[in-house]
């Protein structure tokens, strides 16, 4: 009987970060890259991400961007100066989520250090 396994899985699901689990690992890494390289005064284009992130192939990056946009973690807008280009910016939800995760990682790192 695998009731113990079910209980363990239930506890894992209940204790996990559901917000971050809805996106796949590549999309997570892409979001982290966007957050690390984004500056409000400097526009970030889809093309810039495809060329520089190195997270995956261009086609996969486009898919990941669609996932992040669907989950409300990035905002994609058409550039007013050149309608062929699309501007990407992280949303407040993404900032809150990464800040929360970063705080958790710092707490863990501090605990390991002690």
């Amino acid at each position, binding site marked *: 009987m695998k009731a113990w396994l079910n209980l363990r899985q239930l506890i894992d699901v209940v204790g996990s970060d559901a917000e971050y*689990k809805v996106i796949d690992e590549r999309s997570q890494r892409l979001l982290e890259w966007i957050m690390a390289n984004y500056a409000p005064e400097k526009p970030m284009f889809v093309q810039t991400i495809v060329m520089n992130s190195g997270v995956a192939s261009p086609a996969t990056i486009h898919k990941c961007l669609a996932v992040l946009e669907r989950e409300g973690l990035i905002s994609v807008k058409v550039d007013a100066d050149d309608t062929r280009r699309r501007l990407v910016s992280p949303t407040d939800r993404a900032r809150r989520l990464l800040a929360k995760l970063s705080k958790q990682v710092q707490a863990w790192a501090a605990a390991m250090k002690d």
Partner: protein
Amino acid sequence: MGRGDEGLTQRSWRSDSPQMLGWSIGFAMAFMLAHWLTMLLSPFFDVVTGKISLLYLPAFIRVVSIVVAGTAGVVGIAAGSALMGVLHHGDSVSFALSEALAAAVAILLAHWLLCQAMRTRQLPITLWSLIALTAIYCTLNAVIHGTIWGLLDPVFEISPWKLALMMLGDLLGVIVMFGLLRVFVRTVRQFKAFKN
């Protein structure tokens, strides 16, 4: 099924029986504990005294029982429910059994419906399947319980708003208990990480 398979099934059934019994007893006790806690909180949350509470904690045990232990868990919560009815509320055996059966049928039916919708025999334990199971169970439980009370209890008058409140009470019970479990699990994890 061949003779060999039959033998294997019987053997595994025999070897699993003590464990299944253990899970049934465990869930029966958990159900009674949750019921007792609900009664302690009843002055604050009861809408219809002794019948409908806006925070019905045993609903959480019902959802967990089927997810963790399947039918053995449901048998446990039915037994717990019947025992509480007879021993604590002083209900007649037939009334307590019908209430226990109603609760068991509601969660079994909710589980079966969700498995059918997801085209699977084993419900995957994910956040979304738990949310869906909870929503279906709360609706079915309110309807089935309301109908049983309407039929068996001459004092209880069935009405849509009572059913809606019962559904809300079950839903809040599950959400609050899952929230508490989440806080507990995360605290234990942080404590373990800190200790290591």
